[in-house]
């Protein structure tokens, strides 16, 4: 079990741009994608009507029976990665895919469900059948990607709340390390739907003003949409085919609070453990990490807990490690977030630049970290950690190195 795993392609689509470079340029400039959540039905009694919504280019999967936004976005982000990083057809044909999502297909399923109720709970015709079947399966986006690129490797879809695509990355990494596969795509995708928006509204976790993780005046999160992909392969395989290596995935850590279905364990012990495990696997000392892309959701409990956990995991070294939450710009993209932020982490190494937390005016004293405030920071970047801390107490940390 000695295969080294490298990153040879990245791609994403978000509210900040319909391709990765546009998204990344906006992130570096501290721009935010926050607007009105116009893909969902806004109930006037919702505490907020904000979201970071993808400005939609619907051209892609035309002709398909189901044009679910999550399918379209995932396919587009893979297509972009394929083009930007010269991933040949035969590589995608032989590779496997692991997708993390919480609601792929849900907007299609909601459309079907409303008709089903209106028709006295009957399935009426092929459209009902197809939208109901496809939309009821969170794996629908992955299945369309497999068809589009005729993939034949191992495949799975994971739903582990906000850590879904971070775990997809761990699974893909392990499959390569263990020799189950030479090349894997790790991906994340989530688009807004009524179930998600109403659920987060009911939990009273939504920001209704400016999205500002770690700020004293923060009130919660703004939901967002994104698709993100990463081509992972064994170092040997990448070198053999002359692929451009962008970074190395050096270590992963996971842990579980086993505490509550939504609230994190505020002592942060388990989240700290997941960071320590990732450092250990990457064979790095805490002071060797240059930057942490925080989970940083902007909820009161998460930001304090994550701060505590970073301090526990890194000790005094935390004072010199730059930290930011790119969610302040992309919104919280739920199942897509882990991998989207992993893509940003890889881009930090590629471009030697660290993105800021937008709108962070007055850092909360309980979140006293070495924040990058509002402006990106140019510096030599050798090692980056990204955290994903999900509902159900799941914690995942990934370490990328040059």
């Amino acid at each position: 079990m000695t295969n080294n795993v490298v990153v040879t392609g990245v791609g994403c689509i978000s509210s900040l741009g319909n391709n990765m470079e546009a998204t990344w340029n906006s992130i570096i400039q501290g721009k935010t994608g926050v607007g009105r959540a116009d893909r969902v039905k806004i109930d006037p009694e919702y505490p907020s009507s904000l979201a970071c919504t993808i400005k939609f280019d619907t051209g892609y999967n035309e002709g398909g029976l189901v044009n679910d936004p999550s399918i379209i976005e995932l396919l587009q982000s893979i297509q972009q990665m394929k083009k930007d990083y010269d991933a040949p057809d035969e590589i995608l044909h032989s590779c496997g895919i692991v997708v993390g999502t919480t609601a792929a297909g849900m907007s299609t399923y909601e459309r079907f469900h409303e008709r089903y109720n209106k028709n006295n709970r009957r399935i009426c015709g092929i459209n009902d059948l197809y939208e109901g079947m496809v939309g009821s399966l969170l794996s629908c986006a992955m299945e369309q990607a497999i068809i589009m690129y005729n993939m034949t490797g191992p495949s799975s879809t994971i739903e582990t709340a906000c850590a879904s695509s971070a775990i997809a990355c761990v699974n893909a990494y392990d499959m390569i390390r263990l020799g189950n596969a030479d090349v894997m795509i790790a991906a994340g995708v989530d688009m807004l739907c009524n179930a998600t928006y109403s659920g987060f509204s009911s939990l009273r976790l939504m920001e209704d003003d400016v999205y500002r993780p770690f700020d004293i005046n923060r009130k919660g999160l703004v939901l967002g949409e994104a698709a993100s992909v990463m081509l992972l392969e064994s170092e040997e395989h990448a070198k053999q085919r002359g692929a451009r290596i962008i970074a190395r995935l050096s270590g992963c850590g996971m842990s579980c609070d086993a505490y509550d279905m939504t609230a994190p364990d505020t002592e942060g012990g388990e989240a700290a453990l997941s960071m320590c495990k990732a450092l250990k696997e990457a064979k790095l000392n805490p002071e060797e990490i240059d930057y942490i892309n925080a989970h940083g959701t902007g909820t009161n409990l998460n930001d304090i807990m994550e701060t505590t956990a970073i301090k526990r995991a890194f000790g005094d070294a935390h004072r010199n490690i730059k930290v930011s939450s790119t969610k302040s710009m992309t919104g919280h993209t739920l199942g897509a977030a882990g991998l989207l932020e992993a893509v940003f982490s890889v881009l930090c190494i590629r471009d030697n630049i660290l993105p800021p937390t937008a709108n962070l005016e007055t850092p909360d004293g309980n979140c006293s970290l070495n924040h990058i405030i509002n402006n990106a920071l140019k510096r030599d970047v050798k090692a980056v950690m990204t955290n994903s801390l999900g509902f159900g107490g799941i914690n995942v940390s990934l370490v990328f190195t040059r």
Partner: protein
Amino acid sequence: MCKRVVITGIGLVSPIGSSKDTYFESLCKGIKLDGPVYPINDFKASDYINANSARKMTKSAQYGVAAAKMSLEDANLEIDESNSRSIGVVAASTFGSGGGMDKYLTNIEKYGGSKASPIAFVNIMHQATTAQICINNKIQGFHVTLVTPGSGLLAIERGADMIRAERANIVLSGGSEEISPIIMDLGKAGSFFCTDDDFEKSIPLHNKSTGSCYGQGSCFVVLEEMEHAINRGAHIYGEISGYGDSAEALGTLWVDPEGNGLGRAFERAFNMGNVCSKNIDCIFASANGYRPSDRGEIKAISRLDIKENIPITAVKSTIGECFGASGAFQVAAALQSMNKSVIPPIAGMSNAEALDDNRFVSGSSLKINVASALISSIYPGGENSALIISKWNK
């Protein structure tokens, strides 16, 4: 040198009993249940979960928490501060709580999104069962939920990966599923499932099968790193000797009638090199009575270089199609076949009516020594898996 993975515990809640013994005895009787939907009659959540927690959980989560608890008891494993962080859960749930989601959406359609229930929202997520298993047992390693239709067997493979990658010493792997009317309606409309009028001919690998019956329940097995199991003196049911999986570019509603993707999964499982295909003693098929996938599976099996007249059986005319839980139910049956030297028959099967003139285990159970078994999984959507388990030899 990769870690070896053994199985040290089985726990389940099924339509034919909520203990591993009653489950296997019922399978061996070969009695096909009556009706297109297989209910769970002898399950009381309060036997396993405190009333306050159980009230918030969906059926799927209740079944899962109970089955996981039984598997831990069967493995004689107590979780405390000394080991909680080296244990994880990898579980499958294809539809999450289909019924819970149906109610949730109906509620927001009628009354508006602001009337959504936060408790319902959190508990209808697919991952709710897995998270509840961790919370209820203080499991702190990790939890992962797989959601594809064929993710039941995959959960066991990914669980074994976690041990081989040294992320845990012990992983509870399996799945949980509950029946919901809306998913049943979709299944019937798509002709995947039988109806009230033709359920009697819902028989796996039968040439006139009318589709699958609906099952539900949960099954978990305890996967353990071999040395860890030996050191604590655990009973070892068997060893995971190989596995492989493969995608197929088909789409949500289709299967390859030639079973080419499943063939690749078989090849990958045997390529792990621990068991030769000629040494497989029986096959626990994924077959559920939906003829296109049954036919693809048998075609893939027929291309294997295996013993002539190898016994092939399937459990789904006795328990129904349980999606995310099915793979673990197949493994639980195969492990007990290995330990008791008896293979259960396909309930309702007569070999005169077998698919494509094949011969399967039918009528009564078959007494035979099983040293290694192949378990397969093929589903519409093109996700295929194969798992090989063997009697454990140090």
